[in-house]
């Protein structure tokens, strides 16, 4: 198909306008139905609640609240009902209501938290089954659960996600997530709608999301609906806290790695939230005497989250949120200064409008800027390499609950990207002009637009079958590529508590990441230009979701994923101006199954998960064109997370993982390289098949104990964490050490046992 850019723009706009017009024209008809709708909030702080269950007692009418906390029940026959709302950690809400003919009944509910919630002892990784949208392989992780999984005393969003079956990392200290055979760049990480391009601190040791500032984390491991695009593997959708609408509240904590402070309170017709976190290695190191000949490196990080939410009218809510994070590393020795830095800045403006009880609109304007760099000053001779990606996006979404059985959703997305890469080895640190190449300077700048529109519908047939077709159309300006991503999901409700689901979809990816799988330091995002084909995945997923016994969820997923035009970085490239100079392109496939058993409530709660998976990759230029298993291919993945409330004061928790070892590359012989001026040379091992061997299995046990106490009558917590309880040091990588006369095999080991304490006070 050969369209000009303007033609394509018109097609996309007409597509959205037609769908929207059709939807808006249908309004008079929809107003004739009997509907119940509203927002569900926490009574204490006014936060909207995601995925709360809303139903009419004794009927089949029910739904779940959206990420905005909104629910809608349509086409309810006139009559008297008991409206019930339930959510994990809250008292069930009940209210008698009267539905009259042609009435839109607005019922906003304030849920009362139970003691379980207040004490933060709930351990859930709720697998949400939404009635109006079939989402396969979706997991919601409440923030209380995130706080229980820690590394170095630091609770972490990505560490929690890693404890789910089928989610792997390149090492136990990396926060890059490999989900069902997809690499970290194939995960769409959204924070209030803004894309976060490198959500890591300490080169990937922990993520940059402060768990005190997070309200909800949603992971879709595959087969996601047409609403989401631009990535091939998964969606990690994070929502920041709105803030307390009723009273001022604060939380201060001090831990081994960082200290945190969060404040929140009411303002106008809404709330505000401000959270900040800062490491203090630099402050501690300043107190320790330093040897001038072997100085300490200076490093640290900080992040700030802020959000303001206002309810302009009963049907209009706006919010503005922002996120800043930055890491710095600096060392000076023998006249050479070396600086590394990286950071993220995001901002989001969101407007939610309820046109009618059954028509919901959301407009999201976001900006995201990710940068990293390296600077060196060699006795006055300065060199630097920096890169960044700036992304402005506008997203619109219209959701129409046309009837109890049919939901339509349509939307658009426009992105403007600016990619910059600069290196300057001329000796001065001046900035080069765009397009400069040669003489020690390289300055690449690329501005690009991408457009997308989608439509999807969900139809329920006799409360047993659901079908959800959808399509997403993408146009990438610079490379002049138009892609069609059809999606289809099916659901069959065998019994009230057992559902079969299947999903198929095509997913194209515009961005490519040049980075290291172990260290999130020089991550460089690049567009798809004319020299490379678009990356593409096809997902096939079958899932059984059930509640075996009261309070016990059991899920079984089987998946197969085809991967086309995936990337491996050319580590041998020294210069280039095209995307094909940076990557090898290849194909792959991933398949496997996952079993997940979870107990949500009670003094004893937690989950057990097991995943079996395989990833095959084939690149013409790698491993002599033969199929290989990438480094993150682990065959077995077994995980347990448990939490036990001993008393009102004490609770304990633990997490355990056991995984197949990572693949590594063996060697068959060695040779010696002598450059023309060297006098000794250097021995190098000749490799066998790439990643043809496997390291020993990884396993690790972490434990924590929390003591609830008070600090000058303020509620406080004292937390003891033991990371890697039995000090089993996992292998980061294995290599042949050729320094001696004969080769020996060495392993680079990861962290031993790390006990830490932290203390937090709520005010």
């Amino acid at each position, binding site marked *: 198909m050969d369209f000009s850019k303007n033609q394509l723009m018109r097609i996309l706009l007409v597509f959205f306008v037609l769908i929207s017009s059709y939807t808006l024209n249908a309004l008079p008809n929809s107003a004739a139905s009997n509907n119940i709708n509203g927002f569900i909030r926490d009574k204490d702080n006014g936060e909207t609640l995601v995925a709360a269950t809303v139903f009419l007692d004794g009927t089949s009418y029910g739904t779940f609240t959206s990420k905005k906390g909104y629910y809608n029940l349509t086409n309810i026959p006139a009559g008297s009902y008991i409206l019930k709302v339930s959510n994990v950690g809250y008292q069930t809400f009940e209210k008698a209501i009267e539905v009259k003919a042609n009435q839109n009944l607005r019922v906003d509910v304030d849920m009362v938290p139970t003691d379980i919630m207040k004490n933060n002892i709930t351990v859930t990784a709720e697998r949400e089954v939404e009635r109006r949208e079939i989402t396969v392989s979706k997991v919601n992780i409440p923030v209380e659960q995130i706080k229980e999984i820690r590394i170095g005393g630091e609770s972490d969003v990505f560490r929690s996600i890693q404890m789910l079956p089928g989610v792997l990392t390149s090492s136990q200290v990396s926060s890059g997530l490999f989900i069902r055979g997809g690499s970290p760049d194939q995960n769409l990480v959204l924070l209030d709608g803004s894309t976060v391009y490198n959500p890591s601190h300490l080169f990937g040791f922990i993520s940059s999301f402060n768990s005190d500032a997070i309200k909800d984390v949603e992971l879709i491991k595959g087969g996601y609906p047409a609403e989401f695009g631009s990535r091939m593997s998964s969606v990690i959708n994070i929502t920041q806290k709105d803030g307390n609408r009723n009273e001022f509240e604060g939380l201060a904590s001090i831990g081994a790695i960082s200290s945190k402070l969060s404040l929140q309170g009411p303002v106008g017709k809404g709330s505000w939230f401000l959270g900040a976190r800062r490491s203090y290695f630099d402050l501690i190191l300043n107190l320790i005497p330093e040897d*001038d*000949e*072997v100085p300490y490196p200076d490093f640290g990080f900080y992040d700030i989250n802020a959000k303001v939410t206002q309810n302009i009218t009963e049907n209009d809510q706006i919010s503005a949120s922002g996120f800043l994070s930055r890491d710095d590393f600096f060392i000076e*020795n*023998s*006249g*050479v200064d070396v600086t590394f830095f990286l950071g993220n800045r995001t901002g989001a403006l969101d407007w939610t409008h309820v046109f009618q009880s059954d028509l919901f609109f959301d407009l999201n304007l976001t900006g995201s800027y990710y940068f990293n760099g390296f600077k060196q000053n*060699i*006795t*006055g*001779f300065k060199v630097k390499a920096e890169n960044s990606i700036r992304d402005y996006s506008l997203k619109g979404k219209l959701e129409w609950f046309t009837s109890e059985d049919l939901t339509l959703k349509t939307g658009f997305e426009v992105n403007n990207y600016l990619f910059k890469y600069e290196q300057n*080895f*001329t*000796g001065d640190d001046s900035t080069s002009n765009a397009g400069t190449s040669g*003489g020690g300077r390289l300055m690449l700048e690329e501005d690009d637009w991408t457009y997308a529109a989608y439509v999807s519908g969900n139809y329920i047939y006799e409360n047993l079958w659901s079908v959800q077709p959808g399509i997403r159309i993408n146009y990438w300006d610079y490379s002049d590529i138009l892609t069609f991503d059809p999606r289809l999901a099916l659901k069959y409700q065998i019994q009230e508590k057992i559902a079969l689901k299947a999903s198929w979809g095509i997913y194209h990816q515009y961005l490519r990441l040049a980075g290291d799988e172990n260290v999130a330091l020089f991550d460089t995002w690049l567009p798809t230009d004319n020299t490379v084909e678009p990356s593409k995945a096809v997902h096939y997923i079958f899932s059984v979701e059930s509640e075996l016994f009261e309070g016990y969820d059991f899920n079984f997923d089987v998946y197969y994923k085809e991967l086309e035009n995936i990337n491996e970085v*050319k*580590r*041998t490239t*020294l*210069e280039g101006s095209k995307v094909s100079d940076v990557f090898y392109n290849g194909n792959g496939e991933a398949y496997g199954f996952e079993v997940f058993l979870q107990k949500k409530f009670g003094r004893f709660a937690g989950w057990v998960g097991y995943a079996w998976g395989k990833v095959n990759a084939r690149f013409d*230029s*790698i491993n002599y064109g033969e199929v290989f298993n990438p480094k993150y291919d682990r*065959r*077995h993945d*077994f995980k347990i997370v448990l939490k036990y409330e001993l008393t009102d004061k004490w609770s304990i928790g633990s997490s355990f993982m*056991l995984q197949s*070892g990572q693949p590594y*590359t*063996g*060697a*068959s*012989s*060695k*040779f*010696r390289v*002598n*450059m*023309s*001026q*060297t006098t000794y*040379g*250097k*021995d*190098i*091992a*000749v*490799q066998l098949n790439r990643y043809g*061997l*496997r*390291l*020993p*299995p990884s*396993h690790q046990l972490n434990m924590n104990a929390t003591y609830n106490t008070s600090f000058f009558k303020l509620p406080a917590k004292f937390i003891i964490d033991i990371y890697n309880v039995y000090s089993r040091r996992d292998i980061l990588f*294995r290599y*042949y050490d*050729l*320094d001696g*006369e*004969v*080769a020996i095999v060495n392993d680079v080991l990861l962290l031993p046992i790390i006990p830490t304490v932290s203390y937090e006070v709520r005010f």
Partner: protein
Amino acid sequence: MKNNILYKILPLLFVVILLSSCEDDAPFDYKEEHYVEAYLTVGQPIDHIKFYRTVPLDEVYSEESAFIDDADVTIYSENNDEMKLEFRNEPSPGYYYNDDYIVKPETFYYLRIETSEGNIYTDTTRTPSLFDWEKEPVSSLTYPADSLNLPPAPDSTKLFWSRSGNINFYLVNVKCLDTLNYGQYLEPPTEEKNRRVPLPFKEVNQLYRDQTTINLIPNITSPVVWFAFRWYGNHEITIQAPDNNYLRWYLQYLTLNGDVYEPLLTTISGGAFGVFGSVAEIKANTFLYKSN
């Protein structure tokens, strides 16, 4: 009760044993391969053509066990010159030589190696053009080892050279010519022995032993980097303009891939690995004084 506990633990133990059985120990089985390390230096006779076999990982490396001395090695130039190479152990052991031919700049060369078993390995290189110092390096430098707060390096200590054709990357080789003696080069001479420059980091042993350091510079000027000196005393600085093959082999030498060979950095055809590359180079001597 004990039985119950055992019942719960047994499945876990079974999984651990099952997974443990998946581990592969690092292999040391020997598989012989042939490799070529062939460089031409503009203005020099042909004196760096190596044709070797790889050696077992658990054996001590020796030139004698590695070199292949019975191959038929020939280099052809674009001017129809045909240079037969002769295997010798002099001046360096294990090389194929031709002392009669001087390598020309900006010239295309073709290497052909035929083994006694009839295998044929080939590669080509185009020699870089000549270049020169823009400003001769200073004849002596002083390293202030006792003062780590070094001032900005003055231009007088920087290296400046002209561009060789369209080459963007240059190799700066710093070779210590005498690791034992220091005082005998002073005025008046002394008996002082040479010693190493203290480095703030630990180098791998193989590099630590070598008298030469090599640094890749994407420019035609470079500051004096103190880390480039492993010893004090008499040094030779060689700037090399490499062709793409030699540059690739330098990346192999750097072993960006750990200490494991990277097949993407080889250019030889026919089943062996390695390169046939070329450089143009300029040299200068400098003396590194201890500051006190």
